């Protein structure tokens, strides 16, 4: 069983002054799986991602990624272990160019002196070019990120993750604020990426979810309400009740 899962979340709990935002949550992600987490506002979706990537410290429980306990690690160590995270609002470095944004995410020269000695050689350039093409920004490499459109920033952030080449990619509402056409593109991209890695996605847009999900987990008040394929979850009466009762 151990070998089957790349990520094991067990009994994960965090409480803020007594309020349990995530409450003894457990779930398991397989390699190359695309797991979508849905749930009403305040269900604890973003908090789960925060806990996995180390942004928030858990009160109890464990998060094991490829046999390593993540809860004891710093954010940057978790990244180096192979977990990448995209935030809900696009978070890119606005004062830097697209090229520089991608370069900073390139997995080399991450120590202080490594960064001082880091050289922009051909391998680096080539890799950045390649990623830029994937995210449709190869025309804007020298533009400051601040001048990109909202959608393009989302793309850029995904590109920054891709260049890290993580084994587990966590995306928080990647299509929020995007046009229908862009959504299609993202769905295509994700389907392409998933070939090589596992993905956890938080999303509200059910159409989009149906496009990409391998399995779906429904969170409610910090607990798993339902889990399974899209079809199964959609027909689960508990889920229907929570969504409609809202």
């Amino acid at each position: 069983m151990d070998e089957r899962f790349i990520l094991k979340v067990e009994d994960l709990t965090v409480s803020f002054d007594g309020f349990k935002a995530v409450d003894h949550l457990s779930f398991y992600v397989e390699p190359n799986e695309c797991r979508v987490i849905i749930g009403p506002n305040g269900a604890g979706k973003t908090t789960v991602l925060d806990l996995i990537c180390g942004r928030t410290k858990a009160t109890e429980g464990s998060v094991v990624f490829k046999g390593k306990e993540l809860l004891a690690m710093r954010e940057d160590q978790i990244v180096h272990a192979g977990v990448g995270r995209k935030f809900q609002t696009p978070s890119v470095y606005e004062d830097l160019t697209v090229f520089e944004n991608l370069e900073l995410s390139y997995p080399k020269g991450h120590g202080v002196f490594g960064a001082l000695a880091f050289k922009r050689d051909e391998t680096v350039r080539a890799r950045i070019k390649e990623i830029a093409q994937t995210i449709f920004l190869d025309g804007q490499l020298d533009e400051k990120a601040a001048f990109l459109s909202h959608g393009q920033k989302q793309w850029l952030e995904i590109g920054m993750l891709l260049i890290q080449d993580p084994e587990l990619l966590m995306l928080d509402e990647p299509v929020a604020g995007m046009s229908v056409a862009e959504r299609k593109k993202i769905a295509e991209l994700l389907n392409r990426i998933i070939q090589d890695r596992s993905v956890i996605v938080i999303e509200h847009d059910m159409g989009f979810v149906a496009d990409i999900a391998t399995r779906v987990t429904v969170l409610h008040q910090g607990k798993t309400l339902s889990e399974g394929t899209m079809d199964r979850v959609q027909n689960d009466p508990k889920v229907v009740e929570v969504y409609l009762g809202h």
Partner: protein
Amino acid sequence: MFADYSMSELGAIFAMQGFAGLILFSVFVLMALGLAIIFGQMGVINMAHGEFMILGAYVTYLTSNLFGDYMPALFGTYFFVAMFLAFLASGALGLFVEWALIRHLYKRPLDTLLATWGLSLILQQIYRSVFGAREVGVTIPDWMMGSLPLTDLIEVPINGIFVMVLAVSISIAVYVMMFRSTWGKQVRAINQNRVMAGAVGINTEWTDRLTFGIGCGVAGVAGSAFTMIGSTGPTAGQLYIVDTFLVVVFGGAGSLLGTIASAFSISQAQSIMEFFLSGSMAKVLTLLVVVGILMIRPQGLFSLKLRK
């Protein structure tokens, strides 16, 4: 050190030393309350806090002269009038400063720090031009000086009691305003979510200005009270800055209770150390301990663990 003294003497000394600690505590509370409101609730660093206090002190000085010249019969009561005027003067200056400077800088806390430092220099120079470079002597009504002999050995300074009473009443007043009044609710709402507070119809602009004004006003009252125990000169305000900020930060910004608790612990630590060590070393040690603890626990003594 204590071998030559009788138990009763020692008891009396320790009682008075405890009292000295309480006075220091009250002084810290008075210094820090205004800042705690401004820094804690608005996140604004007001480096001119000391100068707002000194404005209160100068107002007290003017009031005492006024009463001395025109209403000598009422001189004994001028202090209350002075404190009220100090509140108004510092508060009004606070409103103006918020309007002219602070409101443009809410998103740049480090820049407020620089701007208010500049403001403090300007205020110092204005005080110097208006009141002269020398310290002014504020005459305190007779009944406020001297001490109450509790027993043969224990004497309690009246101005100390006054400062303590003042500290307690202002703390209560601030607490009530903060947690019982509409203004307090609005301030806390803005502190938690500015955009949302604005969206539900709170006039964030005016609430900010009022908060800043009240914080400065409280500083003015503190300055007025300090004429009893300290000096009033153009640069006297700078003496308070480091202590005040440390008290607020140590307490955990945003928590009034924390400010009071931190004022209590710092003042007690300092006054106990002062008793056993030389004053200079006591001060250095107190500061080092506070900074040391802040390094281990940067959020301060009291702070809520919030969901990011």
